């Protein structure tokens, strides 16, 4: 701050009328009646993500080419970005503000790039030492189990993972084909998680067969159950059991295990979920003509939109409003699948319109193999005695995965029914956090209602309309020739270009606008932030309007 010069006599004055001091004695902050202040909000994409990944932040770090920090930020919420970046149904993109401007940001593609960089740079993962005594058992090594194990191990709790299969990954390994999630990527993700802290792995240890839940509860300080859904739901029609009818999941398991499969020339897949799409597309890859039989229409299909589109693109046919009612077969040769024609009735509890028989209309399909993929259910035998159930799922309270037993937690599909990878990851992390708080006696974190923004809060004058950078894919004939990954991922240039599209909703990304446009030079540009100089800010609020991303709020002075 300068000083106000007052001349007491002519002698003190300069020889002509010239300035001898600046104006900073004049604290124009007193003119202000409204004060701007930096006030970062939560970007809508983050609120759309079940794991609450700090998407804005890691995309910002990518634009700064601070990849290791971006990766660390991502791993705070999700230990397998290389997986979710490939297979997630990306609800974040639905929430993306840019969707209301041109096209939403390709968040999963960015997530995948960062995750893969983390796999390529093993030095980024600093192994956490075992700092706690309490041992935790994690049963099941799907996305929920791996996530729970990771976040417990990172906090220093020794974790033992029990997995029935010979290798870890659960549904990621057996339920998702390689063209979406290559085995070597999954292997590296699993290895990274297992290496991240004090984790012991016991494979070939199935709950109920090799391990007993009540015993685990005694031996460990806490148990997390994330065993998923292991039983395919039957169609419940005559002729279902017998030659030519196979459960879709078993087929996927054989395909993913590298076994040769030959479902024949023509194949029908019953169901409309992701498993049905995966089965159909794997069958296409073995050379079959594939028809998906679904009892509702495309609008009601629970599968990820992208997967449906990909399946169509790969030549999978769809037969909507059709439900198998019986299957006939001779000693050899194709099966005859009799189907009832359906129509849509009133909405059911899921909000989707219920399929009802359309009179007597029916038709028959002749196929070599029929795959069933109408959903999976939990095998509750291993926990039925110990835990309260909801149907045959584990009953949990709230979002933290607590069960009827204090020391037992559950998450993922076994607690929610068929859901998604990202929801399982979120459930695993939340249960891990709760377990850690239970064991350490830490208080519950205060929950604050997040404040977010929408397109109305974006100053779109600072953005140019454009298109999402698409992830390159292999040509169709190559894709169908085997199980190689279809989407090849961003190169550095694409990653940067897509990251640069992000609005950075509600959070400063150092665009300089507030500093540039301040008529009163009252914004200080510091090393890693800006600061208002309230001695001089006149409260014109130009910065508030010119902040493209609503990272500045206002409040009346004296209130």
């Amino acid at each position, binding site marked *: 701050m*300068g000083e*106000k*010069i007052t*001349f007491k006599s002519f002698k003190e*004055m*300069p020889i002509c*009328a*010239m*300035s*001898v*001091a*600046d*104006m*900073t*004695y*004049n*604290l*124009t902050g007193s*003119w202000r009646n409204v004060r701007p202040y930096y006030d970062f909000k939560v970007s809508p994409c983050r609120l759309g993500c079940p794991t609450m990944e700090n998407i804005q932040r890691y995309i910002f770090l990518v634009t*700064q080419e601070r990849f290791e920090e971006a990766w660390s930020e991502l791993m705070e919420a999700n230990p397998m970005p290389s997986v979710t970046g490939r297979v997630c149904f990306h609800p974040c993109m639905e929430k993306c503000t840019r969707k209301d401007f041109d096209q939403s940001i390709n968040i999963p593609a960015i997530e995948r790039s960062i995750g893969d960089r983390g796999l390529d740079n093993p030095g980024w993962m600093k192994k956490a030492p075992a700092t706690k005594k309490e041992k935790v058992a994690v049963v099941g090594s799907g996305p929920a189990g791996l996530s729970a194990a990771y976040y417990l191990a990172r906090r220093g709790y020794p974790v033992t993972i029990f997995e029935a299969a010979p290798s870890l990954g659960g549904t990621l390994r057996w339920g998702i084909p390689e063209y979406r999630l290559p085995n070597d990527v999954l292997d590296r993700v699993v290895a990274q998680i297992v290496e991240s802290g004090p984790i012991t792995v016991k494979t070939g240890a199935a709950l109920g067969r090799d391990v007993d839940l009540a015993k685990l509860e005694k031996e460990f300080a806490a148990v997390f159950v994330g065993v998923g859904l292991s039983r395919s739901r039957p169609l419940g029609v005559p002729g279902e059991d017998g030659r030519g009818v196979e459960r879709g999941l078993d087929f996927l398991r054989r395909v993913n295990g590298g076994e040769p499969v030959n479902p024949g020339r023509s194949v029908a897949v019953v169901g409309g979920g992701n498993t049905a799409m995966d089965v159909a597309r794997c069958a296409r890859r073995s050379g079959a003509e594939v028809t998906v039989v679904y009892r509702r229409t495309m609008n009601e299909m629970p599968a990820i939109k992208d997967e449906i589109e990909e399946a169509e693109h790969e030549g999978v046919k769809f037969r909507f409003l059709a439900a198998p009612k019986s299957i006939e077969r001779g000693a050899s040769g194709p099966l005859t699948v009799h189907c009832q024609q359906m129509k849509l009735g009133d909405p059911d509890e899921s909000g989707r319109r219920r399929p009802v028989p359309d009179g007597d209309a029916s038709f028959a399909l002749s196929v070599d193999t029929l795959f069933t993929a109408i959903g999976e259910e939990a095998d509750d035998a291993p926990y039925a005695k110990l835990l309260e159930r909801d149907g045959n799922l584990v009953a949990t309270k709230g979002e933290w995965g607590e069960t009827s037993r204090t020391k037992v937690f559950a998450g993922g599909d076994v607690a929610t029914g068929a859901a998604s990878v990202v929801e399982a990851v979120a459930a695993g992390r939340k249960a891990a956090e709760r377990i850690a708080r239970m064991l350490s006696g830490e208080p519950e974190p205060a929950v604050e209602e997040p404040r977010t923004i929408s397109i109305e809060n974006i100053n779109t*004058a600072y953005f140019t309309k454009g298109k999402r950078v698409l992830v390159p894919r292999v040509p169709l004939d190559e894709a169908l020739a085997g199980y190689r990954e279809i989407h090849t991922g961003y190169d550095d240039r694409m990653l940067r270009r897509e990251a640069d599209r992000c609005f950075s909703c509600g959070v400063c990304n*150092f*665009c*300089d*606008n507030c500093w*540039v*446009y301040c*008529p*009163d*030079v*009252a914004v200080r*540009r510091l*090393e*890693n932030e800006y600061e208002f*100089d309230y*001695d*001089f800010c*006149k*409260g*014109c*609020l*130009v910065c*508030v*309007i*010119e902040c493209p991303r609503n990272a500045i709020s206002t409040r009346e002075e004296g209130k």
Partner: protein
Amino acid sequence: MNAPKIPLPELMTSGHLACQGCGATQAMRFALKALGPRTALVLPACCWSVIDGPFPHSSLKVPILHTAFEAAASTASGLKAGLEMRGDTETVVMAWAGDGGTFDIGIQALSGAAERNEDIIYCCYDNEAYMNTGIQRSSSTPIGAWTTTTPGVHWKKRPKKKMIDIMAAHSIPYIATASVAYPNDLIEKFRKAREIKGTRFLHVFAPCPTGWKLAPELSVSMARQAVTSKVFPLVEVTDNGRTWKVWKDFEPTPVKDYIMAQGRFRHLSEEEQRFVAEGIEQNWQYLLSREAGSSFVPGLQH
């Protein structure tokens, strides 16, 4: 932190006396960032002779010579000659005048200096009326605007003077318009001007929330809309007035949005708004024809 969008050194300090959201102060800050500390300013009567602060204080870190309303260009010419006599060829002399001191009261001296091709930069920061003395109309006030001397139904009926054409007619080496909403463009033009010898005329659009009856926070946004609605096109005239370049790489916005956001235009009826918008479109077409190299198009309404 990223690389700064505009140069870091500040030659303007806080504490100056401009109103909230003043475009003229932004213009000065950007211009000095472009020209650097070896700059001497000549200020006729205008907002900036007040903004700068009372004797013996100044909010600028470069020397300022205050002069009479009509004398900015001639004083600047003299200052430059004086510096040259003392062997200083590096210091840039810039006359910094408002639209009144340029379009009206200072035009004689400006015309004289330009005709002699004096080695000065003349910058008119244009807030479209005599704001400092109480919002009286100038010949830069746009058609349709309220001022204290064009009140009520007597809103200004005459269009804004075509200052760029007048300056182009003087065959000076560099003429450009700029806007405080486009600081990089503005800075680039001042830097370009610094490297050219002869009279360089820069016309900077600088919103005046007080005089335009505008919320101060919309100041920059209005400056931007003035460009995107073609009210204030960004133009560069080089080659001694012969080559015109009009900036067109923007998403156009309606004139109506621009004028109706400002209290000074709010009295205009739908028909009068259309009339104003037509004039703006004609002026735009005229500029495009200048760019295309055709001669003056007669019969223009404005």
